[in-house]
């Protein structure tokens, strides 16, 4: 039915830490322009999955392909592949010794060897898009958590990645800053950016996702359109998980 070009293909992925099986024979594909949201209880392997996609973790079985090219931990080819995968982490991971602009332009200049004028112009345009054009020359320590995460998103976007991986990017933020960051992500989704998102914000997940994937115990338990998943989950495990987000006395 969906003949769109696949960006990511995960086939029978197995990830273990020692004897602990984190991801068990997991297969999943992401098409161009699609936004896939991964949810599940903590420890279900969703963050590990993102890290495997970016080659930050060695895998013990199966394959991860980006545009048909294997992503392999520790291989030289990884450097080229990583430029096409943007990743934003939970903790503020800006480089503290560089200004916002330097943070953003470092890798287009050093990795992609683009010209300084073009990169700077591009960076300023992106900063404007996330509402931080006046912070270009600030240091990370002068920014709020929400501002830092928006800069981190821009730092990945400027590489023109084929896919963005967002790993619980609002989990360490104060509640009032969550919104500004998620709005940026919604904007990206609307402009057709391919994304894989791990989040605990259920309302956001429903709004941004094209497809929701529910992971538990290292396997995909249920996946489907957000509306169906959130309002009419098929599996008992998903029902139980979603119940933990509602309160009643």
């Amino acid at each position, binding site marked *: 039915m969906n003949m769109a070009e696949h960006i990511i293909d995960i086939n029978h992925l197995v990830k273990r830490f020692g004897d602990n099986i984190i991801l068990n024979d997991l297969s999943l594909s992401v098409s161009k322009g699609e936004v896939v949201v991964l949810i599940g209880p903590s420890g279900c392997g969703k963050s590990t999955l993102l890290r495997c996609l970016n080659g930050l973790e060695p895998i013990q079985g199966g394959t991860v392909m980006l545009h048909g090219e294997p992503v392999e931990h520790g291989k030289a080819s990884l450097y080229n592949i990583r430029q096409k995968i943007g990743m934003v982490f939970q903790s503020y*991971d800006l*480089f503290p010794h560089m200004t916002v602009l330097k943070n953003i332009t470092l*890798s287009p200049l050093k990795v992609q060897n683009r010209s300084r004028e073009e990169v700077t112009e591009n960076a300023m345009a992106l900063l404007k898009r996330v509402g931080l054009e006046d912070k270009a020359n600030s240091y990370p320590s002068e920014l709020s958590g929400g501002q830092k995460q928006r800069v981190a998103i821009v730092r990945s976007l400027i590489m023109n990645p084929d896919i963005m991986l967002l790993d619980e990017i609002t989990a360490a933020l104060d509640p009032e800053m969550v919104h500004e960051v998620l709005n940026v992500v919604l904007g990206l989704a609307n402009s057709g950016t391919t994304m894989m998102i791990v989040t605990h914000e259920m309302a956001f997940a429903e709004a941004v996702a094209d497809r929701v994937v529910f992971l538990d115990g290292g396997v995909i338990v249920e996946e489907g359109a957000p509306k169906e998943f959130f309002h009419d989950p098929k599996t008992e495990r998903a029902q139980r998980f979603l119940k933990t987000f509602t309160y009643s006395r």
Partner: protein
Amino acid sequence: MDWSFIQKFAPMYVEAAVLTVTIGVIGILLAVVIGLVCALVKYYRIPVARQIVAVYIELSRNTPLIVQLFFLYFGLPKAGILLSSEACGIIGLAFLGGSYMAESFLSGLRSVGKVQLESAESLGLRRGQVMRYIVIPQAASVSVPALAANVIFLLKETSVFSAVSLADLMYVAKDLIGMYYNTGEALTMLVAAYLVIILPISIVFSVLERRMRRAGN
């Protein structure tokens, strides 16, 4: 205070101070090189070399310099390795200092968090680039004050060189006390000489450190 005595023997102190500083500087430079290599071996967890470095660091840190020097100067010749006093001073200081420098470099390198490395890697930066643009600039602000403290510590340690018959400041002072009993003058010149060597360095380092701390924020 007998000024004529001071005048007469001051040149001896100058000469000795030059010797102390020369050997000190060479030894410290070698210590920095050894320390950097050891720190990188430990940081990148290079097999085998890592275990050797660990043993070296423990041996170096848990024995006094004077015993190290005695072994080099009096012991090794019996195994056919003859070293001059100067060579012993340099090797001893480098052997002792290398481990201290290694720990200072390493604590700097390790102060750069894992997330920093991962986000640099996921931006496509290569290992060398991660080192150069991300790790070293951040590690420096932790390492430099510790390295500076080591330099001062090692300069002070040079005072035991006289034990292996190096004609350094202590040697001259002890000689003069033994020969002329002008203890007050001999000791005053000794203190003055060490102050001239250590005080400026110590002041420069503390100014440097304060400036770096400010830049780090």
